[in-house]
């Protein structure tokens, strides 16, 4: 079993080739928990809530102040701590397909299997939203208008996406070539 890894402050990427023939190619990305960031977010949220409570109970202000403070705290917690993703994995099974997995802290695992025959091309694209821009690894699938992101929740650095993209390209192009050859052989036999 071959294993290699890349680590950043936020993520650890592990590339794992399973079984003696290295037939299955697994890429894990594990989220590194930032205690300091989580603590800061919790303190800030606590501060907003405490301020709202103080305004409502001690200074006799309108209950809307408390509601706004609680709303702000919940938004802060949601943004700061996030959807609590533990890890995301990509399992490449040549000639068969790609399994995309997302593991959450709550224990829930979201899985999607994409047959290799439906993958037209894996792409590295730049995504732009109103506040930032980052790289996204996506799949163009047959008969689907929208791109399918390989990593649903995490925004990974390019150095982690590139090896996965290369493996996906190799796996998809190998299967596309073999399907072309088999089509040509079938045609020659029929003629």
């Amino acid at each position, binding site marked *: 079993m071959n294993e290699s890894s890349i680590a*950043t*402050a936020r993520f650890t990427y592990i590339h794992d080739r399973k079984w003696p023939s290295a037939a299955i190619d697994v890429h894990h990305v594990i989220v590194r928990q930032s205690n300091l960031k989580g603590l800061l977010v919790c303190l800030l949220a606590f501060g907003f809530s405490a301020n709202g409570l103080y305004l409502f109970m001690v200074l006799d202000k309108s209950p809307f102040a408390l509601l706004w403070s609680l709303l702000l705290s919940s938004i802060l917690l949601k943004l700061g701590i996030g959807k609590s993703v533990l890890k995301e994995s990509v399992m490449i099974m040549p000639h068969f397909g790609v399994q995309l997995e997302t593991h959450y802290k709550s224990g829930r695992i979201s899985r999607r299997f994409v047959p290799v025959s439906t993958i037209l091309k894996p792409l590295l694209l730049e995504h*732009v939203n109103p506040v*930032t*821009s980052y*790289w996204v690894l996506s799949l163009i699938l047959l008969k689907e208008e929208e791109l399918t992101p390989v990593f649903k929740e995490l925004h990974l*650095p*390019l150095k982690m996406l590139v090896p996965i993209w290369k493996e996906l390209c190799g796996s998809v192009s190998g299967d596309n070539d073999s399907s072309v050859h088999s089509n040509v052989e079938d045609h020659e036999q029929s003629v």
Partner: protein
Amino acid sequence: MAPEKQRILMVSDFFYPNFGGVENHIYYLSQCLLELGHKVVVMTHAYGNRSGVRYMTGGLKVYYVPWRPFVMQNTLPTFYGTLPIIRTILIREQISLVHGHQAFSTLCHEALMHARTMGYKVVFTDHSLYGFSDVGSIHMNKVLQFTLADVTQAICVSHTSKENTVLRSGIPPEKVYMIPNAVDTAMFKPAEERPGGNEIVIVVISRLVYRKGADLLVEVIPEVCRLYPNVRFIVGGDGPKRVRLEEMREKHSLQDRVDMLGAVPHASVRSVLISGHIFLNSSLTEAFCIAILEAASCGLLTVSTRVGGVPEVLPEDMVVLAEPDPADMVLAIKKAISLLPEIDPQVMHERMKKLYDWHDVAKRTEIVYDRALKCPNQPLLGRLSRYLSCGSWAGKLFCLVMIIDFLLLHLLQLWQPEEDIDKVPDFVIPPVEISSAFDQEQDD
């Protein structure tokens, strides 16, 4: 010594797929800078579904940031809302200099403000003239004063525009350079054969709005048609004043002598121009007027109002100027008709090729970039003193805005450190495709 190759971010609310003077300027300047070896990235707002990263000819990368425009193609001004995306683009593209365009662009002002806070050198190009007395102009001038208080260098498209910008913003005139616009002479070529016959065709292509003198046309066209039975008008363009022109046409029964084409796509402008002999521009204010350059490049004699920077654009034998008054404009058209036999469209086109060239504009802009980058860096306190001179109340407000921007930037640096932002690899496209169009044109 040749200027160093830079990585430039052009920012404006006005870019393709919109068509106009500013949009053309940014596009052609960017293409020529790419050919000179610089890296150019454009940032603008999303246009409908056109959102995200796009690549244009020559590898010009464009960020269509999904901030919806709220009025007249301008992004909603939020002061600090665009700080995260601008910071991200500046870092991931490893930009060395930011070039903003157009005083009316809120995205430009915000980008220049954030870029200065981050320590980048910034250049601003003003494309329009503004007044001093109406409410809109007073507010616009205050915003411009804020932006230009700390800009490294500024560029104006005519001497008149430079004077106007200096008076409006209070920027020292030695910081302002005059680099005119140019025209794509490869695209705007005269017809092989000039339109013949006794008929004289006068072409008008502009937005039919007050500022472009559409009301003058309503007075001028019937009078010219009355004086010259062999004159015909072709009016291209659309806008709120189109109704007035249609009414004029009906009132004077000029349906067979005045053709209203409606909005003309930019790609079709040349085909309209070469069907005429004279180009009529009736603008009430113009910093430069690329339209008359396009007309002259197509071999048309121009009749224009003497406003703004228009007198600086063409040589005296290529343009007949008039005051923005119907009687004076009719006299100018009369003079232009008498000059027509002396006009050779091909000779005019060749002269335009020598006078105006986007490569020349790019080289001059390169010099401005070079000088901007040589300016010393100033810490925040030094820069704040420039804002204080903007007014007794406004100065303090501007300082507060910059201090908050500075604090927000540091907060953002804690939230998303620079190391977490991926640098974009460079995709080099050889400049052969861009040069071949110009080389072919020269061979012709």
